[in-house]
């Protein structure tokens, strides 16, 4: 189950962060998302070491925490998407599909002429789309 998704701007500032749990662990998830930026930074700065190809936006598993797994995705504009899931057995393709849909939703949201680039995303439509994507994650 996806417990949290986040959009992080290129100054590593949160643009959108939404948790999908009933429990009050939003803060913990914020910490996890924030820490995962370190991994993204390292992976982007040392592409050789981590072995990932930079041609790909999908960054793969960033790091496992005690209860969660964190996946990352880096757009061409250096905006980061972060996904936190509780699933222990995660199929890469599921995550890729998720990020692709999420990216499309993000592009739609920031293409809004009233959206100022670099500001937080407050669009309700975007939030709705994201929760739909999160709901449909792993179903197929």
């Amino acid at each position, binding site marked *: 189950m996806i417990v949290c998704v986040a959009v992080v701007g290129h100054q590593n500032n949160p643009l959108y962060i939404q948790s999908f749990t009933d429990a009050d*662990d939003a803060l913990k998830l914020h910490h996890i998302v*924030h820490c995962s930026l370190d991994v993204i930074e390292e992976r982007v700065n040392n592409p050789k*070491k981590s072995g990932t190809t930079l041609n790909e936006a999908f960054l793969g598993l960033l790091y496992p925490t005690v209860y969660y797994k964190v996946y990352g995705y880096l757009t061409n504009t250096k905006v980061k998407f972060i996904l936190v899931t509780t699933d222990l057995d995660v199929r890469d393709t599921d995550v890729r599909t998720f990020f692709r849909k999420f990216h499309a939703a993000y592009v739609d949201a920031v293409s809004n002429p009233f959206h100022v680039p670099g500001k*937080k995303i407050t669009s309700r439509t975007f939030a709705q789309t994201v929760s739909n994507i999160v709901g449909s994650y792993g179903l197929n």
Partner: protein
Amino acid sequence: MEEYPEELRTPPVSLVALFGYSELHTSITKHLHSQQPPVNALAFPDLSHISLLLAHDDQINRTSSVRDPLSVSDSSSPIPSRCGGILKRDWLLKHRTKVPAIVAAFFPSHHIFGDPTQWLQVCSDLDNLKSAIRPKNIKLVVIVVQSSPQEEISEDRLVALRKRAELDSKYVLFFNSSIESELTLSLSRIASAFAELALAYYREEGKRIKSRVEKRSSNSLDLNVRYCFKVAVYAEFRRDWGEALKFYEDAYHSLHEMIGTSTRLPAIQRLVEIKTIAEQLHFKISTLLLHGGKFIEAVTWFRQHKASYEKVVGSTEFIFLHWEWMSRQFLVFAELLETSSATVQSFSSLNQGTAEISLTEFEFYPAYYYQLAAHYLKDKKSALELLLSMSETAREIDSSSESITPSVYIGQFAQLLEKGEAFTLHSITDEEYTRYTISEAKRFQDSFEIIAWLKRSYESFTNLKAQRMAALCAFEVAREYYGLADPNNAKLFFDIAANLYRQEGWVTLLWEVLGYLRECSRNLGALKDFVELSLEMVALPVTSHEDSGNLENKSYGPGGPATILGRESIHREVFTLVCRKAELISSTEESGFKIAHDSPLNLEIDLVSPLRPVLLASVAFHEQMIKPHALCSITLSLLSHLPLPVEIDYLEVQFNQSTCNFVIRNSQRPLWASASNTVQSGSQVENEPSLVLVPNNWLRLTYAIKSEQSGKLECLSVLAKFGPLFTICSRAESPAAMEDLPVWKHENRVESLSTKDPVLAVFGQKATQVEEPEPQVDVSLGTSGPALVGENFTMPVTVTSKGHAVYSGELKINLVDVGGGGLFSPREAEPFSLESHHVEICGIDDGAEGTDESESETGNIKKIQQSFGLVSVPDLKEGESWSCKLEIKWHRPKPVMLFVSLGYLPHCSEANAQKVHIHKSLQIEGKMPLLVSNRFMLPYRRDHLLLNRIKPAPDSEDMSSLPLNEKSLLVVSAKNCTEIALKLVSMCVEFDDEQGEASCLIQQVGGCGDTPGSANLAPGEEFKKVFTVIPTMKTPKLGLGSVHLKWRRQGGNTTEACVSTKHKLPEVNVEASPLVMSLNCPPYAILGEPFTYAVNICNQTQLLQEAKFALADAQSFVLSGSHSNTVSVLPKSEHVLSYKLVPLTCGQQQLPKITLTSVRYSAEFQPSVVASSVFVFPSAPQADKANCATKQ
């Protein structure tokens, strides 16, 4: 890692027992230690000790041999399955320190080869030894110690010895310590035999156990685990790491199968035993993998280990045991990783080749494991706390009542009971066990361990530049300290985290940290910190309305959830704290602070302060330049991101010119008596009906202020006072240069401009320039046309007062080169060479008419340098004027900019009055007045053969040549190239030195100087003067001196001195001509009348000169005489060629052209065209002869 026994942590080393000849033992032991792999040795002085060594072992052996390892260990226990265990605690230690692989017996050689009684003794000793070691398969080596190499050896005895010992010949060794070379040889022989036998021993033992594993002799998993473990250990003894790893893994997997199947022990203890053994096996496996450099495998293994056991919680009531165990796994792995990564530096080879499980970077960092170890320990701590708080009994447990110790099996505990003299171990129930563990757990302060690990993790992450992970660790450390009521340390680490969150704008995280920090400062009693932190929290862009969950929820810090409600409540709290009325001060102890009546609280907000959102002050002057004493509008805009409106009692605006400071008073508030100390009494006070800062709305206030002082006027800060004791001083910012608030800039909100005027909001500045008072003095530069090079050009400067009196005036004069280049500005270092300045100021005639010299000497400044001048202006009253003349001299033609600036004080009385400045500038062209040129003319119709002219020397291209001792003419012309008329006073040629006079004679043609050559030259007019030159010395370079011109401007006053200009004449080449050809012909001819045309060839040398001549026919003449021939001219004589010519045409006619070629010099020369022409009249002219003569 330290809690594991030594034998588990280090790789096992083969053990050897040495008997007899104790004096040799040290050297042998030392040698064995230095071997690779090393061998440990037990040393006993004689063979009787064998029973001592093996007796203990025998005992153990016996007890273990009597029973099936799993069935009975304690005869008092009625149920066999409840006894025994998987691994004996001391098994490993025993094999490392007690049970040798080899027994080496030392016998002196004379005992063997000497006396038969001694030989018999040896035999019986050997028999004893063999019987002792055989059941354990221990290998035997017999070492015969020789006293000298030459000792006699009986072959029969040796064979008998081998037979008796049942040994191969290579295990009966001779040891000779008498000679050094023999000693080392013997030692190495012994070492290699030992190594070989030890290998054999451990291999056999391993094989023996392995066969049991393979046979699956018992279905019991316990035994399987034990056997696998033993095989692995024996493999380790042999340094067969691969096999060791394989069997450790087998043991591990078998053990894992036991979970849920084993029923031997009570449930909790059963699991504890399995987990303890699993932990040790895991430790062994990880160590082997890491030491083998297999990082990826090790990490993958750890991950599997964690995955397979993290759900094996056991009793949920005593879950703290599980958390503790988990925490230990992470800690141990972290330590292992840390020690191995110290040896293997680079992870560069760590590609994620293992496709199925992708490992992440962090899983290779010990810091990650430390952090998780701390996390689990924290879980343990809280679980234990929960347990203690829930059950009464648990709280009462203390360790003294119990006597529970670890039992003989790993992972098991037993009760030590005293029965008379003897102590016996009894197995315990789960209840007893948990009581014991709780009492043990209570003894430990987990927080310190958590802090230590987290700190290690923090440092490690910091070194790895994973700053966010580090910040999280710091936050966790701080939280632990906070839990330990150590606010000082907590604050230190909270600050680290807060800085990063602030920087990156993670508001919810920042809110959390600030909430803790706020409580820390409350506990520390630091009011200012408390207020600052509260205000920072309040001004965070927290916009969430939902109040998810109740405030008691443990997942939030003391700041509560980040909601608008939370902000508002903190806002109210802090403002009631700082703004309360004086009489209420005593009753504020519930907030935890005591504020003295007279201690005001001032907060400073600068441009980098996190408190900027609390009060943002933008100040804009409406004009960039203002006149002194004139009113100027200034707009003060205040913005606050506090959630609730706040009312300001008064505002104070501070400028760099403190006289401009002013106060804005809220008229609804009472006047505070001691308002301010920075505002002078009598300064401007404005009243506003209300000063309320509404959240996210600019409070715009526009006032007019007046500055007396010229220069920069800048608003420095805005001080807002809330209540009697609380002030916030915010640095003023220009709207043009205002940066976004770091935490607010990503918020999606309506942004309004700080001023109503959008232009001002974009370009407004907090500083303005106050102009100087308008100068009421005129400075005029009288110009008189272009300047001429060489003259002293005078430039009148007039200072006229038109309303201002002039006091302590100073006139600065600056010459600046327009084109750039040659002229120097006064700031540069001035080389004091006059030549380098093409234009210079020669003097300033300051209008004192030069007569009053005393004045200029006494006080007035007068400094003149080449391009800079300073002169003081005398005090002038209104309407008066003063003038001076600048004298500027040009050395080269050059345009120059003249800057004149006058600084003066309009009033003499004011000490600090500012000077008024007037600047004037004028461009002046410097021009060359006269262009001097010269020309040489040789004597008419006399042509000299000048060899230099025919073959010019390479360096004298344009140099004219003059014949020696001949009179040549020099024509000097001076052309006026200015636009004004000049008067040329005189022109003469003067030699530069004595030598020139001696070598040349120059005379003015037409009388010597009675007409001085003075002439008026209109613009463009040219003046010529002719000189004769007779060179008297043969020289390739003859200086002819220079032309001296004296001139002045025409029409000016004649008293003005003449300007003299020099023009250097070019050098000439003087040479003696060997041949001179002169043409003789009448000055004119008459049509049809014949005349004589003679060509004289004069040889001026001492040699015979042969000359070829050729005469070309001319159309206009009929000619008689030879056309061409070669003549010989005798030295110092002349040859005349004479022709008769009859002119046929009238007018200027070209005479037949003669070409002379000197054979000696191979030089050809011709007379010039002008010289060889004659005018032919149609008939004889009617003129007197005298006129004709002058014409010629």
